[in-house]
């Protein structure tokens, strides 16, 4: 009884968000009301959502509802099972932080009216939640497309700039094409029964061919949303273009909707698994991860950098997903559960720390009006809150113990080390390469994050105006602090999260890790057995802290604490100034050198005779010229041919009808049979 309510709660929250949006549009220009009342309300809604989802995760079981709207033959089917609940939990937790932050973030001066922003923002939230509880193809697609649409309007909030408009267009186009692919995939899954409910799709048993068709269409559709190679092209354009809280939502939460879709289709709707599906996802994911992190390392715009790092993380999640698929296709369900746990854990971890990082960029943007790393620096002195909170996010996202990013990485590598059990020898060949690329990705992520943090917050300010930078306001602080706390919790109490993930994996591959990790005590993370591997983040933390304390005390006791301040040593150089620090470009230089073939680079080197010499390097994505431009050219060519149909000569038009008529008349005899 108590349990059956949590889906209702979710629905109430969804309708509440829609209501808030409408309120926003009614009070179009009353800024303070919208910012200080409506947005926090939405945040509370997120919290409620999280609680409801948490409860249904604990209580387990599936709840269904049927709303009397939608198509006459197909009313809205909604259901809440462990998978949806987990993602709802992530959504709710993230939204709480982000909404509170937005309450302090949005200024009255932005191009779009605040009420409109409020509407779009909350419709975005509602559609995401609806995606997660959809139980038939129509509702799912409806919510999916509304999600794309509302986020599009948020991205183009500042539509005065042509660049942002272009980004928005590219985003919506790719999202729409992906959506059509998904639609077709559902068309295959319903197996011509004309019944689009997921429950019906589960019952269908498709032939391997049709199953693969559905799978491939789904992969296409969801990769378009998740930004998997080669459909990533919109992501680094669209995410930075949006206002920072929206970027946080898109990078942190919306990408996970694609993951949810993949899990739903691959593990829930498609009951059969074919091994090469897993390999495909694995390869796609790893390629994306490596690509994303390498590009992130050379960016000089802080939000673009984060966007590329999102591509990397989603790639890792995809890889874990593929590994799980691979294992389950061979019936090794326990290890599949391990891989899935890694996947879901990273979903949660990334959702939180990436939102946190995007929010910090928001505060920086407000304080300095700068996004370009080359013009920032030294902000830790003016905005310590933001800096230290950002540091937490950075440590998490570069996968360092004892933070959340490390756990998922650890689980992922553990599940990789199990692969020698696979029956196919040449799959085993894949493993070292895969593991190596994951390790490389992780290391490069560290590189990138040091660049991000070091250039933005450390060093000396590269511009005069940075000295007037102010710290985040209260709402912003609360929002970011919340996310930071969650990040730390994820890192220190992984077993707690794993116990939440357990029901999900039980639903998907009817295996779970909770029992195992319970048996070895809550403080130790032991996926399979003590002898195999164990990691105790609390021990770890205690060890480090203890050692630090020991050192500190010993130094104080045995020696002294005298400290003198003086100017930094410029290496004997009299005119040392902030311009001599390494720029973002300079920091990315080694990566550019090592991964030269990845990039399409345009360099401008200063010449001796230049009056004001400048060094400039523009790194571009090879996929744009390699994949997208050709498609565009072909389309234009075809359209030019089609255009020839309309040449204005009436005789020619008559000729068309004449020929059509004759052609059809020739067909007539065939009809008699």
């Amino acid at each position, binding site marked *: 009884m108590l349990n059956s309510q949590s889906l209702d709660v979710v629905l109430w929250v969804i309708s509440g968000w829609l209501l808030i949006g409408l309120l926003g549009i009614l009070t179009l220009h009353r800024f303070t009301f919208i910012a200080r009342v409506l947005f926090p309300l939405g945040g509370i809604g997120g919290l409620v959502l999280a609680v409801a989802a948490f409860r249904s995760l604990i209580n387990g079981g599936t709840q269904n509802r049927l709303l009397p*709207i*939608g*198509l*006459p*033959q197909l009313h809205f089917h909604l259901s809440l099972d462990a998978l949806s609940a987990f993602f709802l939990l992530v959504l709710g937790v993230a939204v709480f932080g982000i909404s509170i932050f937005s309450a302090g973030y949005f200024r009255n001066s932005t191009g779009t009216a605040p009420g409109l922003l409020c509407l779009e923002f909350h419709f975005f939230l509602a559609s995401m939640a609806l995606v997660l509880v959809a139980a038939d*193809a*129509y509702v799912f*697609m*409806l919510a999916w*497309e*509304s999600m794309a*649409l509302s986020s599009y309007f948020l991205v*183009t909030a500042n*539509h*005065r700039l*042509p660049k942002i*408009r272009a980004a*928005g*267009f590219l985003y*919506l*186009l790719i999202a*729409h*094409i992906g959506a*059509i*692919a998904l*639609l*077709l995939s*559902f*068309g*295959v899954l*319903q*197996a*011509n029964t*004309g019944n*689009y409910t997921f429950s019906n799709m589960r019952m269908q048993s498709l032939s391997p061919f049709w199953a693969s068709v559905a799978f491939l269409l789904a992969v296409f559709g969801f990769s378009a949303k998740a930004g998997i190679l080669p459909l990533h092209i919109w992501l680094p354009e669209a995410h930075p273009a949006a206002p920072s809280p929206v970027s946080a939502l898109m990078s942190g939460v919306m990408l996970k909707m694609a993951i949810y879709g993949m899990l739903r289709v691959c593990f829930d709707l498609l009951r059969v698994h074919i091994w090469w599906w897993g390999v495909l996802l694995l390869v796609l994911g790893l390629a994306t991860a490596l690509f994303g992190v390498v590009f992130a390392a050379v960016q000089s715009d802080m939000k673009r950098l984060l966007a590329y790092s999102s591509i990397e993380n989603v790639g890792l999640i995809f890889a874990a997903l593929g590994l799980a698929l691979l294992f389950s296709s061979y019936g090794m369900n326990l290890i599949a559960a391990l891989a899935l746990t890694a996947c879901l854990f990273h979903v949660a971890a990334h959702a939180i720390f990436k939102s946190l990082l995007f929010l910090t960029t928001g505060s920086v943007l407000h304080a300095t009006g700068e996004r370009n790393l080359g013009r920032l620096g030294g902000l830790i002195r003016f905005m310590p809150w933001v800096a230290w909170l950002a540091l937490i996010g950075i440590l998490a996202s570069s996968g360092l113990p004892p933070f959340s990013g490390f756990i998922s990485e650890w689980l992922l590598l553990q599940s990789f080390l199990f692969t020698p059990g696979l029956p196919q020898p040449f799959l085993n060949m894949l493993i070292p390469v895969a593991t190596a690329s994951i390790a490389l990705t992780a290391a490069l992520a560290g590189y990138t994050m040091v660049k991000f943090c070091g250039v933005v917050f450390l060093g000396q300010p590269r511009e005069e105006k940075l000295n007037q930078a102010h710290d985040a306001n209260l709402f912003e602080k609360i929002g970011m602090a919340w996310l930071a706390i969650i990040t730390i919790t994820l890192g220190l109490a992984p077993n707690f999260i794993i116990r939440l993930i357990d029901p999900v994996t039980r639903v998907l591959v009817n295996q779970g890790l909770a029992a195992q990790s319970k048996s070895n005590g809550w403080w130790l993370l032991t996926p399979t057995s003590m002898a195999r591997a164990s990691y105790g983040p609390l021990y770890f933390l205690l060890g480090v802290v203890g050692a630090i304390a020991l050192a500190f005390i010993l130094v104080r006791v045995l020696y002294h604490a005298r400290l003198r301040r003086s100017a930094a040593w410029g290496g004997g150089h009299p005119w040392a100034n902030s311009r001599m620090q390494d720029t973002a470009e300079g920091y990315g230089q080694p990566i550019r050198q090592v991964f030269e073939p990845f990039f399409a680079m345009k360099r401008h080197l200063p010449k001796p005779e230049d009056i004001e010499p400048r060094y400039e390097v523009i790194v571009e994505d090879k996929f744009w010229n390699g994949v997208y431009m050709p498609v565009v050219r072909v*389309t*234009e060519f*075809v*359209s*030019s*041919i*089609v*255009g020839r*149909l*309309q040449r204005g000569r*009436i005789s020619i*038009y*008559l000729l*068309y*009808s004449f020929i*059509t*008529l004759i052609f*059809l*008349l020739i*067909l*007539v005899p*065939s*009809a*008699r*049979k």
Partner: protein
Amino acid sequence: MSPLFLVLATPLLGSLVLGIMGHRPNGRNVNVFFSFATFLAAVFLTTRIVADGPIFALNQQFFIDSLNIFLVTLTAFIGFTTSVFSRPYMRIEEDRGKMSHSRMRLYFSMYQLFNFCMLLALTTNNMGILWVAMEAATLTTVLLVSVYRTPASLEAAWKYFILCGVGIAQALLGTILLYMAAQKVIAPGVNPLLWSNLNAVKTLLNPGVMALAFVFLLVGYGTKVGLAPLHNWLPDAHAEGPTPISAVLSGLLLNVALYAVIRCKILADGALHNHFAGHLMIGFGLLSVLVGAFSLLRQRDIKRMFSYSSIEHMGIITFAFGMGGPIANFAGLLHMTVHALSKSAVFYAVGHAAQKAGTQIMENIRGLIKVSPTVGWGLMMGTLAILGMPPFGIFASEFMILTSAMHQLPWAAPVLLLGLAVAFGAIFSRVQPMVFGETNVKRLAHPPALLPVFLHLGLALMLGLYIPGYLNHWFVQAAAIIGG
């Protein structure tokens, strides 16, 4: 029978009155009045149908069943909203000296006559009268398209006239063959041209004649539907006439022509016992989708662009009916309805946008939501509705069409995917900068009538989320009638 009589008589009377009274300042109001009266009559009729089912009238010369009742109502409704829209629109045109008094008179009286012809074509049971009504509709719209008397409009009207005239002639030949086939099997004394009678005996009709007849009918009425490659008149005619006319042409006349095609298909299917008719329609449909979509990429004139999108949508609908089956037919009918609503809404918005900017060339229309947000959002929302974005109704119908295509004709699904994707890219990449961005144009002399725009969009939105019971009932029944 009285409501049906009212539905037909009101616009006819209206055209006479408006023709006689000549141009007075309140001519536009009279126009609105008559359209509204027609709409009321249609609503009255609808209630009657909802109450006591299909009816015949005037010894079976007229009939109303599930397949045409919603089209009648839709036609009357959009006829009314368009008259409301053309009040300020034509007034501004007049102020700008594009319309003389005599032409205003012509415009209003022909507008009513045109509505009459469409309603006649929809309600008649007689295939011959259907043909006559279609021809008459062509003639009236020719006059409406050429009402500006500019070279471009004359050229468009001329092409429209010649191409559709020839097409319609083919339809006449088809009708004659139909008659010929019917005479064989129908008992003497029973009128062999009445669709209901034909439908009763359709299985007995000679396949050879019916195949031939259907080809001529398809080419004939297909020309008016604007199926590629018979579509060439359409973009010209829709782009050069006054915008209200573009709205009704795209929103209503195409539907009426398609309605005629469907009636013929039902008979042909009955006689042929194979999918000949369906396959022809599928072929035409896919071709139209592709041609429409790829032509969209080359447009500079906004009204031209949206008329190509009409071609594309007609292609989708034809494809759906060609595919047949309860789901696809249902989707097709829904698509007809929602497309009519959304496309006319788009044309209203486009009309005002073009008037603001003083041009139809898209490069010169910018920043609509800055100068007048309602027009801007109207255009944006309408475009999204047309592009099949949820929660608008077109998404629902496309959802059903695509998913059922994926299993009945898997090879056709990629074609549709391509068409839809290209159309989306083409239209949206042009509309976005028109709605967003900076501008320096000034407000209009007369406040634009935006009620119709949002009324239509609201209905389209509703149909995406909730379809009323009786409408659903009609659709299901009509889908059953169409069969396939």
